[in-house]
């Protein structure tokens, strides 16, 4: 073997497996070859390590492991390194992102299917309906009784509604929605989220303890579970809450609003707008010359001059129509002489108008934008108000006013009809 090839024997040197002949050749060559000597001196570290029997056993055990175990250990070793950990971390984050994305996608599909089902007037598929604890519901007989109470002969029920104090929102069941939409309302009640209940509590808690609130009338499915009109008027319910409510109503599934919101992009979310609300009352002059706020029923029976006092919770445009018998409505405010279709009103600034004596009912319209031209027939239709609109008669000692609001902040218009002969409003 040539001397330059003796380096090949270095492996045997460290493992101490050289034959006597190989060993002699190697060492003799190292004495005359500095490079080989250096290589042998460097190899001494490994030789010392392998001279330990315990280390040898350990290495032999590692080398004797089956390829499968070796491969697994090799993978573990790779994962233990920094790049390996980075890859593993990235992969885990990716998997979580995919799972979350799928979950949000499924939620949005579920929401869409429920929404479609509700629009068709049928309950959503049980498999897709959210699992929630059903609310306390009266037996069918009780509901029938309530329904009959809700539609009593004209003249008796409103009085009951006005004189019967209600401290809980459940009393609002006395005016159920139409049959077609009732199932949807019940479904909405079933899916009432904790947030909505909290908002109700908030609305109640913000009122004075001695406040005796009468629910005068409500309409639409939002009325059954909606917030207090008075609270909406005074902005006692946070706008964000109201905004969420509107989204819930749009989705027809209030229980999973938060998850649904995750799946929506920011631009889709409407900006938070204060819900449109108004307060109105009637003012009469007593015999002693003092003015006093009264409700519609008292105003209708008063023989003197009755003034309608109207106030909005934000800058808006107002129209007041008068209707007598079966005749077409007549615009009272703004007056014809002004040539305007809308009267601009500032937030918290009351507008007063004397109610003509021969008026059966008044139609009040409030809008964020100026009203356009409208026919008198159309005025009749608009007076019916929109679904989801809530009204509330507050009968505090010093306050005999009615609050009307639409919890949906996207609603641009509010309309109501004030009957003066039946002492009810809607």
């Amino acid at each position: 073997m040539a001397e330059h090839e003796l380096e090949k024997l270095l492996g045997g040197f460290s493992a101490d497996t050289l034959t006597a002949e190989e060993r002699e050749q190697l060492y003799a060559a190292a004495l005359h070859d500095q490079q080989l000597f250096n290589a042998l001196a460097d190899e001494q570290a490994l030789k010392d390590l392998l001279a330990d029997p315990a280390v040898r056993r350990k290495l032999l055990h590692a080398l004797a492991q089956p390829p499968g175990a070796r491969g697994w250990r090799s993978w573990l070793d790779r994962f233990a390194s920094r790049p390996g950990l980075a890859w593993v971390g990235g992969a885990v984050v990716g998997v979580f992102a995919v799972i979350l994305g799928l979950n949000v996608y499924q939620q949005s599909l579920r929401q869409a299917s429920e929404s479609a089902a509700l629009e068709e007037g049928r309950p959503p598929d049980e498999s897709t309906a959210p699992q929630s604890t059903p609310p306390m519901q009266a037996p069918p007989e009780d509901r029938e009784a309530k329904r009959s109470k809700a539609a009593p002969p004209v003249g008796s029920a409103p009085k009951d509604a006005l004189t019967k104090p209600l401290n809980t929102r459940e009393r609002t069941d006395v005016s159920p929605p139409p049959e077609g939409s009732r199932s949807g309302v019940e479904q909405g009640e079933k899916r009432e989220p904790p947030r909505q209940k909290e908002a109700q509590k908030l609305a109640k808690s913000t009122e004075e303890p001695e406040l005796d609130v009468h629910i005068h009338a409500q309409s639409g499915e939002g009325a059954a579970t909606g917030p207090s009109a008075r609270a909406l008027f005074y902005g006692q319910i946070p706008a964000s809450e109201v905004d969420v409510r509107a989204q819930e109503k749009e989705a027809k599934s209030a229980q999973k609003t938060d998850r649904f919101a995750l799946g929506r992009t920011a631009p889709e979310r409407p900006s938070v707008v204060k819900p449109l609300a108004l307060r109105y009352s009637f003012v009469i002059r007593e015999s002693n010359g003092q003015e006093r706020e009264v409700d519609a029923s008292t105003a209708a029976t008063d023989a003197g001059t009755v003034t309608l006092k109207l106030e909005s919770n934000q800058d808006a445009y107002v129209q007041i129509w008068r209707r007598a018998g079966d005749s077409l409505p007549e615009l009272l405010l703004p007056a014809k002489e002004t040539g305007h279709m809308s009267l601009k009103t500032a937030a918290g600034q009351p507008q007063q108008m004397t109610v003509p004596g021969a008026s059966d009912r008044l139609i009040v319209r409030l809008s964020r934008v100026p009203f356009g031209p409208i026919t008198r027939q159309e005025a009749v239709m608009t007076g019916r108000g929109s679904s989801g609109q809530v009204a509330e008669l507050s009968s505090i000692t010093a306050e005999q006013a009615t609050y009307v609001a639409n919890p949906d902040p996207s609603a641009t218009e509010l309309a109501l009809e004030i009957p003066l002969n039946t002492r009810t409003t809607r």
Partner: protein
Amino acid sequence: MDRDSILASLRERILAFATLRTSKEQAEDMTQEVLFLLHEKYAHVTDLTDLVPLAFQVLRYKMLDAHRKALRRGEYNQESVDDLSLATPDASPETQLDQRQRVERLMAALAQLGVRCRELFRWKLEGKSFPQIQTLMGQTSINTIYTWDLRCRKQLMALMGGSWE
């Protein structure tokens, strides 16, 4: 070769090797210490195949010792004497830790080798000589085994970071 001529050659090789790794003065001191030890303590070792590996072993210990002394003297970085641990007859915790880490690195490197290299190392660790390994691997030329071993060792050293230390 007689013992004196072997020691003379060893002196030359050791001095050249040490000079590559430390200063000339230190290398001369270190060479002198190795030869003094071989002469005083291992005077009975005369055979080339025993004397040369013994010289390598003593040289390595002397170099490690010089490295530790330099550390203690603060030649690399200043360190308070109070912070240094007391000397013990056993291997210091640092040495034990160093050896354990080297074994772990070696095991990890061995695990990344191919089947042939792993087989080769296994037989070497079992104490089999190159001719025996030649038979086990069914090779007609011993040089093939030498070449394979050289390549496998280079691969292993590269996997360990270029040094056995």
